[in-house]
Protein backbone atom coordinates (compact mmCIF):
# COMPACT_ATOMS: atom_id res chain seq x y z
CA UNK A 1 0.00 0.00 0.00
CA UNK A 2 1.53 3.24 -1.15
CA UNK A 3 0.84 6.58 0.51
CA UNK A 4 0.94 9.84 -1.37
CA UNK A 5 1.00 13.13 0.54
CA UNK A 6 0.48 16.64 -0.79
CA UNK A 7 1.07 15.71 -4.40
CA UNK A 8 -0.51 17.22 -7.46
CA UNK A 9 -1.62 14.92 -10.26
CA UNK A 10 -2.41 16.64 -13.54
CA UNK A 11 -3.51 15.10 -16.83
CA UNK A 12 -2.47 11.67 -15.64
CA UNK A 13 -3.89 8.18 -15.52
CA UNK A 14 -3.79 7.26 -11.84
CA UNK A 15 -4.23 3.65 -10.74
CA UNK A 16 -5.64 4.01 -7.27
CA UNK A 17 -5.85 0.38 -6.04
CA UNK A 18 -4.47 -0.11 -2.54
CA UNK A 19 -3.26 3.49 -2.36
CA UNK A 20 -3.75 6.17 0.26
CA UNK A 21 -3.79 9.83 -0.75
CA UNK A 22 -3.47 12.64 1.75
CA UNK A 23 -3.79 16.28 0.77
CA UNK A 24 -3.43 15.52 -2.92
CA UNK A 25 -4.97 17.34 -5.88
CA UNK A 26 -6.14 15.66 -9.08
CA UNK A 27 -6.56 17.85 -12.18
CA UNK A 28 -8.09 16.26 -15.30
CA UNK A 29 -6.92 12.84 -14.24
CA UNK A 30 -8.28 9.46 -15.23
CA UNK A 31 -8.90 7.61 -11.97
CA UNK A 32 -8.33 3.93 -12.74
CA UNK A 33 -9.58 1.29 -10.33
CA UNK A 34 -8.96 -2.43 -11.02
CA UNK A 35 -10.89 -4.13 -8.23
CA UNK A 36 -8.19 -4.29 -5.60
CA UNK A 37 -8.37 -2.92 -2.11
CA UNK A 38 -10.34 0.30 -2.04
CA UNK A 39 -8.12 3.44 -2.00
CA UNK A 40 -8.42 6.13 0.60
CA UNK A 41 -8.64 9.82 -0.18
CA UNK A 42 -8.07 12.19 2.72
CA UNK A 43 -8.39 15.93 2.29
CA UNK A 44 -7.96 15.57 -1.48
CA UNK A 45 -9.38 17.81 -4.18
CA UNK A 46 -10.52 16.96 -7.65
CA UNK A 47 -11.11 19.02 -10.74
CA UNK A 48 -12.27 17.55 -14.02
CA UNK A 49 -11.11 14.10 -14.91
CA UNK A 50 -13.00 10.85 -15.20
CA UNK A 51 -13.42 7.45 -13.58
CA UNK A 52 -12.24 4.32 -15.30
CA UNK A 53 -12.91 0.77 -14.09
CA UNK A 54 -10.83 -2.12 -15.27
CA UNK A 55 -10.46 -5.85 -14.68
CA UNK A 56 -12.46 -7.11 -11.68
CA UNK A 57 -13.82 -3.70 -10.90
CA UNK A 58 -15.97 -3.82 -14.01
CA UNK A 59 -18.17 -6.59 -12.61
CA UNK A 60 -20.02 -4.60 -10.00
CA UNK A 61 -21.31 -1.77 -12.25
CA UNK A 62 -22.12 -4.33 -14.91
CA UNK A 63 -24.13 -6.29 -12.33
CA UNK A 64 -25.93 -3.13 -11.20
CA UNK A 65 -26.64 -2.17 -14.81
CA UNK A 66 -28.10 -5.58 -15.53
CA UNK A 67 -30.26 -5.32 -12.43
CA UNK A 68 -31.41 -1.87 -13.45
CA UNK A 69 -32.61 -2.80 -16.90
CA UNK A 70 -34.11 -6.06 -15.65
CA UNK A 71 -36.62 -4.28 -13.49
CA UNK A 72 -34.80 -3.78 -10.19
CA UNK A 73 -34.23 -0.14 -11.01
CA UNK A 74 -35.48 1.04 -7.67
CA UNK A 75 -33.10 -1.23 -5.82
CA UNK A 76 -30.20 0.03 -7.87
CA UNK A 77 -31.33 3.60 -7.29
CA UNK A 78 -31.27 2.84 -3.60
CA UNK A 79 -27.68 1.67 -3.86
CA UNK A 80 -26.77 4.80 -5.77
CA UNK A 81 -28.53 6.95 -3.22
CA UNK A 82 -26.61 5.38 -0.38
CA UNK A 83 -23.48 5.71 -2.47
CA UNK A 84 -24.05 9.44 -2.93
CA UNK A 85 -24.89 10.00 0.70
CA UNK A 86 -21.81 8.13 1.82
CA UNK A 87 -23.78 5.61 3.82
CA UNK A 88 -22.80 2.60 1.74
CA UNK A 89 -20.43 0.82 4.05
CA UNK A 90 -18.14 -2.03 3.10
CA UNK A 91 -19.86 -5.38 2.78
CA UNK A 92 -23.25 -3.74 3.36
CA UNK A 93 -26.03 -5.85 2.02
CA UNK A 94 -28.92 -3.86 0.49
CA UNK A 95 -32.31 -4.27 2.16
CA UNK A 96 -34.53 -6.77 0.34
CA UNK A 97 -37.15 -5.05 -1.74
CA UNK A 98 -40.87 -5.81 -1.99
CA UNK A 99 -41.31 -7.64 -5.27
CA UNK A 100 -44.34 -5.53 -6.09
CA UNK A 101 -42.30 -2.36 -6.04
CA UNK A 102 -39.35 -3.49 -8.07
CA UNK A 103 -40.68 -1.95 -11.22
CA UNK A 104 -42.38 -3.48 -14.20
CA UNK A 105 -42.83 -7.25 -13.82
CA UNK A 106 -43.36 -8.45 -17.33
CA UNK A 107 -43.80 -12.12 -16.35
CA UNK A 108 -46.68 -11.37 -14.03
CA UNK A 109 -48.20 -8.95 -16.51
CA UNK A 110 -48.09 -11.70 -19.11
CA UNK A 111 -49.76 -14.15 -16.77
CA UNK A 112 -52.56 -11.73 -15.98
CA UNK A 113 -53.03 -10.92 -19.63
CA UNK A 114 -53.22 -14.58 -20.56
CA UNK A 115 -55.76 -15.37 -17.84
CA UNK A 116 -57.86 -12.34 -18.69
CA UNK A 117 -57.75 -13.08 -22.41
CA UNK A 118 -58.77 -16.68 -21.75
CA UNK A 119 -61.71 -15.64 -19.61
CA UNK A 120 -62.88 -13.18 -22.26
CA UNK A 121 -62.41 -15.83 -24.93
CA UNK A 122 -64.47 -18.35 -22.99
CA UNK A 123 -67.25 -15.88 -22.27
CA UNK A 124 -67.41 -14.77 -25.89
CA UNK A 125 -67.44 -18.41 -26.95
CA UNK A 126 -70.28 -19.22 -24.58
CA UNK A 127 -72.30 -16.31 -25.93
CA UNK A 128 -71.40 -17.26 -29.48
CA UNK A 129 -72.75 -20.78 -29.07
CA UNK A 130 -75.75 -19.56 -27.14
CA UNK A 131 -75.03 -21.19 -23.79
CA UNK A 132 -75.55 -17.98 -21.88
CA UNK A 133 -78.68 -16.93 -23.73
CA UNK A 134 -81.15 -19.74 -24.32
CA UNK A 135 -79.75 -23.21 -23.71
CA UNK A 136 -82.95 -24.76 -25.02
CA UNK A 137 -82.43 -23.09 -28.36
CA UNK A 138 -79.14 -24.89 -28.63
CA UNK A 139 -80.78 -28.19 -27.86
CA UNK A 140 -83.61 -27.73 -30.31
CA UNK A 141 -81.48 -26.41 -33.10
CA UNK A 142 -82.60 -22.82 -32.75
CA UNK A 143 -86.30 -23.50 -32.52
CA UNK A 144 -88.07 -21.91 -29.64
CA UNK A 145 -89.70 -24.24 -27.22
CA UNK A 146 -93.46 -24.24 -27.09
CA UNK A 147 -95.77 -25.54 -24.42
CA UNK A 148 -97.04 -28.99 -25.22
CA UNK A 149 -100.64 -27.80 -25.12
CA UNK A 150 -99.96 -25.45 -28.01
CA UNK A 151 -98.41 -28.01 -30.30
CA UNK A 152 -101.78 -29.45 -31.29
CA UNK A 153 -104.43 -26.75 -31.41
CA UNK A 154 -107.71 -27.88 -29.98
CA UNK A 155 -109.61 -27.08 -33.18
CA UNK A 156 -107.64 -29.68 -35.13
CA UNK A 157 -107.90 -32.40 -32.51
CA UNK A 158 -109.63 -35.40 -34.02
CA UNK A 159 -113.20 -35.84 -32.96
CA UNK A 160 -115.99 -38.19 -33.83
CA UNK A 161 -118.38 -37.13 -36.59
CA UNK A 162 -121.58 -35.77 -35.16
CA UNK A 163 -123.62 -38.70 -36.46
CA UNK A 164 -121.21 -41.24 -35.01
CA UNK A 165 -121.09 -39.34 -31.77
CA UNK A 166 -124.84 -39.72 -31.49
CA UNK A 167 -124.58 -43.43 -32.14
CA UNK A 168 -121.80 -43.76 -29.60
CA UNK A 169 -123.69 -41.85 -26.94
CA UNK A 170 -126.80 -43.95 -27.45
CA UNK A 171 -124.78 -47.18 -27.46
CA UNK A 172 -122.96 -46.21 -24.32
CA UNK A 173 -126.16 -45.34 -22.56
CA UNK A 174 -127.92 -48.59 -23.48
CA UNK A 175 -124.93 -50.77 -22.67
CA UNK A 176 -124.31 -49.10 -19.34
CA UNK A 177 -128.01 -49.53 -18.55
CA UNK A 178 -127.66 -53.19 -19.43
CA UNK A 179 -124.74 -53.39 -17.00
CA UNK A 180 -126.79 -51.87 -14.23
CA UNK A 181 -130.13 -53.65 -14.31
CA UNK A 182 -131.88 -56.85 -13.32
CA UNK A 183 -133.63 -59.02 -15.91
CA UNK A 184 -134.90 -62.52 -16.41
CA UNK A 185 -133.10 -64.27 -19.27
CA UNK A 186 -134.55 -67.75 -18.90
CA UNK A 187 -137.12 -68.04 -16.16
CA UNK A 188 -137.37 -71.82 -16.53
CA UNK A 189 -133.68 -72.40 -15.98
CA UNK A 190 -133.22 -69.59 -13.48
CA UNK A 191 -130.88 -67.61 -15.76
CA UNK A 192 -130.93 -63.95 -14.85
CA UNK A 193 -129.06 -60.74 -15.56
CA UNK A 194 -127.82 -58.74 -12.61
CA UNK A 195 -125.93 -55.43 -12.33
CA UNK A 196 -122.16 -55.67 -12.62
CA UNK A 197 -121.88 -54.20 -9.15
CA UNK A 198 -123.95 -57.09 -7.83
CA UNK A 199 -121.81 -59.57 -9.73
CA UNK A 200 -118.71 -58.02 -8.23
CA UNK A 201 -120.30 -58.30 -4.82
CA UNK A 202 -120.94 -61.99 -5.41
CA UNK A 203 -117.40 -62.60 -6.64
CA UNK A 204 -115.94 -60.79 -3.67
CA UNK A 205 -118.11 -62.82 -1.34
CA UNK A 206 -117.14 -66.00 -3.04
CA UNK A 207 -113.51 -65.10 -3.34
CA UNK A 208 -113.16 -66.79 -6.65
CA UNK A 209 -113.48 -65.44 -10.15
CA UNK A 210 -114.47 -68.74 -11.64
CA UNK A 211 -117.83 -68.73 -9.96
CA UNK A 212 -119.56 -67.08 -12.87
CA UNK A 213 -118.76 -69.77 -15.40
Amino acid at each position, binding site marked *: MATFQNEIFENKEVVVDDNRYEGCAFYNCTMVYRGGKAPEFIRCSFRGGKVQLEDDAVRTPRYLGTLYVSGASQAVEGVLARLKSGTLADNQRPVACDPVNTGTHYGRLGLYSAVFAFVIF*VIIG*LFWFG*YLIYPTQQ*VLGGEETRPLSEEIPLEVMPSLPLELQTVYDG*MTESQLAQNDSYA*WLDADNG*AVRIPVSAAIELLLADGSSDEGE
Partner: protein
Amino acid sequence: MTLLSRKETRITLLLSLVLLVLVGCDNMVEQAKIDQPYGESEVFETAARDLEPNTVPVGYLREDEALYMGTQDGSPVEELPIELTTEVFTTGQLLYENFCTPCHGFSGYGNGIVAEEGFPQPASFHDGDTAALSVGEMFDVITNGQGAMYSYATRIQPEDRWAIIAYIRALQLSQNASYDALTPDMQAALDELAE
Protein backbone atom coordinates in the same frame (compact mmCIF):
# COMPACT_ATOMS: atom_id res chain seq x y z
CA MET B 1 -39.57 -14.33 -2.55
CA THR B 2 -42.89 -15.42 -4.04
CA LEU B 3 -44.03 -14.84 -7.58
CA LEU B 4 -47.41 -13.43 -6.59
CA SER B 5 -48.45 -11.41 -3.59
CA ARG B 6 -51.33 -12.48 -1.42
CA LYS B 7 -53.77 -10.13 -3.15
CA GLU B 8 -52.69 -11.32 -6.57
CA THR B 9 -53.01 -14.91 -5.45
CA ARG B 10 -56.58 -14.25 -4.37
CA ILE B 11 -57.42 -12.64 -7.71
CA THR B 12 -55.90 -15.54 -9.60
CA LEU B 13 -57.80 -18.08 -7.51
CA LEU B 14 -61.04 -16.16 -8.05
CA LEU B 15 -60.50 -16.05 -11.79
CA SER B 16 -59.72 -19.76 -11.79
CA LEU B 17 -62.94 -20.43 -9.88
CA VAL B 18 -64.93 -18.39 -12.41
CA LEU B 19 -63.31 -20.39 -15.18
CA LEU B 20 -64.21 -23.65 -13.49
CA VAL B 21 -67.81 -22.55 -13.12
CA LEU B 22 -67.99 -21.50 -16.73
CA VAL B 23 -66.45 -24.73 -17.91
CA GLY B 24 -69.07 -26.52 -15.83
CA CYS B 25 -71.81 -25.10 -18.05
CA ASP B 26 -71.87 -28.24 -20.15
CA ASN B 27 -74.57 -29.26 -22.53
CA MET B 28 -75.49 -32.86 -23.07
CA VAL B 29 -75.95 -32.13 -26.76
CA GLU B 30 -72.23 -31.49 -27.00
CA GLN B 31 -71.14 -34.55 -25.09
CA ALA B 32 -69.34 -37.34 -26.85
CA LYS B 33 -71.74 -39.89 -28.20
CA ILE B 34 -71.61 -43.19 -29.91
CA ASP B 35 -73.22 -42.95 -33.30
CA GLN B 36 -73.87 -46.64 -33.61
CA PRO B 37 -74.44 -48.50 -30.35
CA TYR B 38 -73.48 -51.76 -31.98
CA GLY B 39 -70.69 -50.27 -34.06
CA GLU B 40 -67.06 -51.28 -33.80
CA SER B 41 -65.24 -50.30 -30.63
CA GLU B 42 -61.53 -49.97 -29.95
CA VAL B 43 -61.98 -51.41 -26.49
CA PHE B 44 -64.68 -54.00 -26.92
CA GLU B 45 -65.96 -55.74 -29.99
CA THR B 46 -68.98 -53.50 -30.06
CA ALA B 47 -69.61 -50.14 -28.44
CA ALA B 48 -72.58 -51.54 -26.54
CA ARG B 49 -71.62 -54.78 -24.90
CA ASP B 50 -73.92 -57.75 -25.11
CA LEU B 51 -75.85 -58.58 -21.97
CA GLU B 52 -74.78 -61.58 -20.03
CA PRO B 53 -77.12 -64.54 -20.41
CA ASN B 54 -80.15 -64.44 -18.11
CA THR B 55 -79.59 -60.77 -17.30
CA VAL B 56 -82.68 -59.21 -15.74
CA PRO B 57 -83.18 -55.45 -15.43
CA VAL B 58 -83.79 -54.15 -11.94
CA GLY B 59 -87.46 -54.57 -11.08
CA TYR B 60 -88.10 -57.02 -13.91
CA LEU B 61 -87.42 -60.27 -12.11
CA ARG B 62 -90.65 -62.12 -12.85
CA GLU B 63 -90.38 -65.49 -11.28
CA ASP B 64 -94.10 -65.83 -10.64
CA GLU B 65 -95.12 -67.78 -13.72
CA ALA B 66 -98.84 -67.56 -13.02
CA LEU B 67 -98.79 -63.81 -12.42
CA TYR B 68 -96.58 -62.80 -15.30
CA MET B 69 -97.14 -65.56 -17.84
CA GLY B 70 -100.66 -66.69 -16.98
CA THR B 71 -99.50 -70.27 -16.94
CA GLN B 72 -98.61 -72.90 -14.38
CA ASP B 73 -96.13 -75.50 -15.58
CA GLY B 74 -96.86 -74.35 -19.10
CA SER B 75 -100.64 -74.72 -18.91
CA PRO B 76 -102.99 -71.72 -18.66
CA VAL B 77 -104.08 -71.08 -15.09
CA GLU B 78 -107.73 -71.61 -14.19
CA GLU B 79 -107.89 -69.18 -11.30
CA LEU B 80 -106.81 -65.58 -10.96
CA PRO B 81 -103.33 -65.36 -9.41
CA ILE B 82 -104.25 -62.15 -7.59
CA GLU B 83 -106.41 -61.54 -4.58
CA LEU B 84 -109.82 -60.15 -5.50
CA THR B 85 -110.57 -56.84 -3.82
CA THR B 86 -112.84 -53.93 -4.52
CA GLU B 87 -109.83 -52.00 -5.77
CA VAL B 88 -109.03 -54.73 -8.27
CA PHE B 89 -112.51 -54.51 -9.77
CA THR B 90 -112.41 -50.71 -9.76
CA THR B 91 -109.10 -50.75 -11.61
CA GLY B 92 -110.33 -53.48 -13.92
CA GLN B 93 -113.48 -51.53 -14.82
CA LEU B 94 -111.54 -48.34 -15.50
CA LEU B 95 -109.00 -50.08 -17.72
CA TYR B 96 -111.67 -52.18 -19.44
CA GLU B 97 -113.68 -49.09 -20.32
CA ASN B 98 -110.55 -47.34 -21.58
CA PHE B 99 -108.92 -50.13 -23.54
CA CYS B 100 -111.59 -52.73 -24.31
CA THR B 101 -114.94 -51.02 -24.84
CA PRO B 102 -114.14 -49.55 -28.29
CA CYS B 103 -114.23 -53.13 -29.63
CA HIS B 104 -115.88 -55.32 -27.00
CA GLY B 105 -118.51 -52.86 -25.80
CA PHE B 106 -119.37 -51.91 -22.25
CA SER B 107 -121.19 -55.18 -21.65
CA GLY B 108 -118.71 -57.40 -23.45
CA TYR B 109 -120.97 -58.51 -26.30
CA GLY B 110 -118.48 -57.41 -28.95
CA ASN B 111 -120.69 -54.51 -29.94
CA GLY B 112 -118.23 -51.65 -29.49
CA ILE B 113 -118.15 -48.50 -31.58
CA VAL B 114 -115.64 -49.92 -34.08
CA ALA B 115 -118.09 -52.61 -35.10
CA GLU B 116 -120.51 -49.85 -36.04
CA GLU B 117 -117.86 -48.47 -38.40
CA GLY B 118 -117.26 -51.71 -40.23
CA PHE B 119 -114.49 -53.23 -38.20
CA PRO B 120 -114.87 -57.01 -37.79
CA GLN B 121 -117.00 -57.59 -34.72
CA PRO B 122 -114.99 -59.19 -31.95
CA ALA B 123 -116.18 -62.22 -30.07
CA SER B 124 -118.64 -61.87 -27.22
CA PHE B 125 -117.55 -62.77 -23.72
CA HIS B 126 -120.92 -64.32 -23.07
CA ASP B 127 -121.22 -67.15 -25.56
CA GLY B 128 -119.14 -69.39 -27.77
CA ASP B 129 -115.49 -70.27 -27.32
CA THR B 130 -114.62 -66.92 -25.80
CA ALA B 131 -116.99 -67.43 -22.91
CA ALA B 132 -115.26 -70.74 -22.17
CA LEU B 133 -111.76 -69.25 -22.02
CA SER B 134 -109.90 -69.76 -18.80
CA VAL B 135 -108.36 -66.73 -17.14
CA GLY B 136 -104.92 -67.90 -18.22
CA GLU B 137 -106.04 -68.03 -21.84
CA MET B 138 -107.55 -64.54 -21.53
CA PHE B 139 -104.25 -63.31 -20.12
CA ASP B 140 -102.46 -64.79 -23.10
CA VAL B 141 -104.81 -63.04 -25.55
CA ILE B 142 -104.35 -59.66 -23.85
CA THR B 143 -100.60 -60.17 -23.65
CA ASN B 144 -99.94 -61.49 -27.13
CA GLY B 145 -103.04 -60.50 -29.08
CA GLN B 146 -105.21 -62.74 -31.19
CA GLY B 147 -106.68 -62.31 -34.64
CA ALA B 148 -107.28 -58.61 -35.27
CA MET B 149 -106.52 -57.78 -31.65
CA TYR B 150 -102.99 -56.64 -31.09
CA SER B 151 -100.80 -57.14 -28.06
CA TYR B 152 -101.41 -54.98 -25.02
CA ALA B 153 -98.28 -56.19 -23.23
CA THR B 154 -96.58 -52.81 -23.48
CA ARG B 155 -99.72 -50.84 -22.66
CA ILE B 156 -101.12 -52.71 -19.69
CA GLN B 157 -99.03 -54.09 -16.85
CA PRO B 158 -99.54 -57.75 -15.88
CA GLU B 159 -101.28 -56.91 -12.62
CA ASP B 160 -103.66 -54.61 -14.50
CA ARG B 161 -104.35 -57.32 -17.09
CA TRP B 162 -105.52 -59.56 -14.28
CA ALA B 163 -107.72 -56.74 -12.96
CA ILE B 164 -109.32 -56.46 -16.39
CA ILE B 165 -109.87 -60.20 -16.49
CA ALA B 166 -111.49 -60.05 -13.07
CA TYR B 167 -113.84 -57.36 -14.32
CA ILE B 168 -114.64 -59.46 -17.41
CA ARG B 169 -115.51 -62.32 -15.08
CA ALA B 170 -117.87 -59.94 -13.29
CA LEU B 171 -119.37 -58.93 -16.62
CA GLN B 172 -119.89 -62.58 -17.54
CA LEU B 173 -121.53 -63.31 -14.23
CA SER B 174 -123.63 -60.17 -14.56
CA GLN B 175 -125.01 -61.16 -17.95
CA ASN B 176 -125.66 -64.78 -17.12
CA ALA B 177 -126.22 -65.45 -13.44
CA SER B 178 -128.07 -68.21 -11.72
CA TYR B 179 -131.05 -67.14 -9.64
CA ASP B 180 -130.20 -69.63 -6.96
CA ALA B 181 -126.72 -68.23 -6.42
CA LEU B 182 -127.96 -64.72 -5.70
CA THR B 183 -128.35 -63.08 -2.37
CA PRO B 184 -131.87 -62.62 -1.00
CA ASP B 185 -131.80 -58.92 -1.87
CA MET B 186 -130.96 -59.66 -5.48
CA GLN B 187 -133.60 -62.37 -5.67
CA ALA B 188 -136.12 -59.91 -4.28
CA ALA B 189 -135.25 -57.41 -6.99
CA LEU B 190 -135.82 -60.09 -9.63
CA ASP B 191 -139.01 -61.23 -7.99
CA GLU B 192 -140.35 -57.73 -8.31
CA LEU B 193 -139.66 -57.83 -12.04
CA ALA B 194 -141.40 -61.21 -12.41
CA GLU B 195 -144.47 -59.83 -10.80
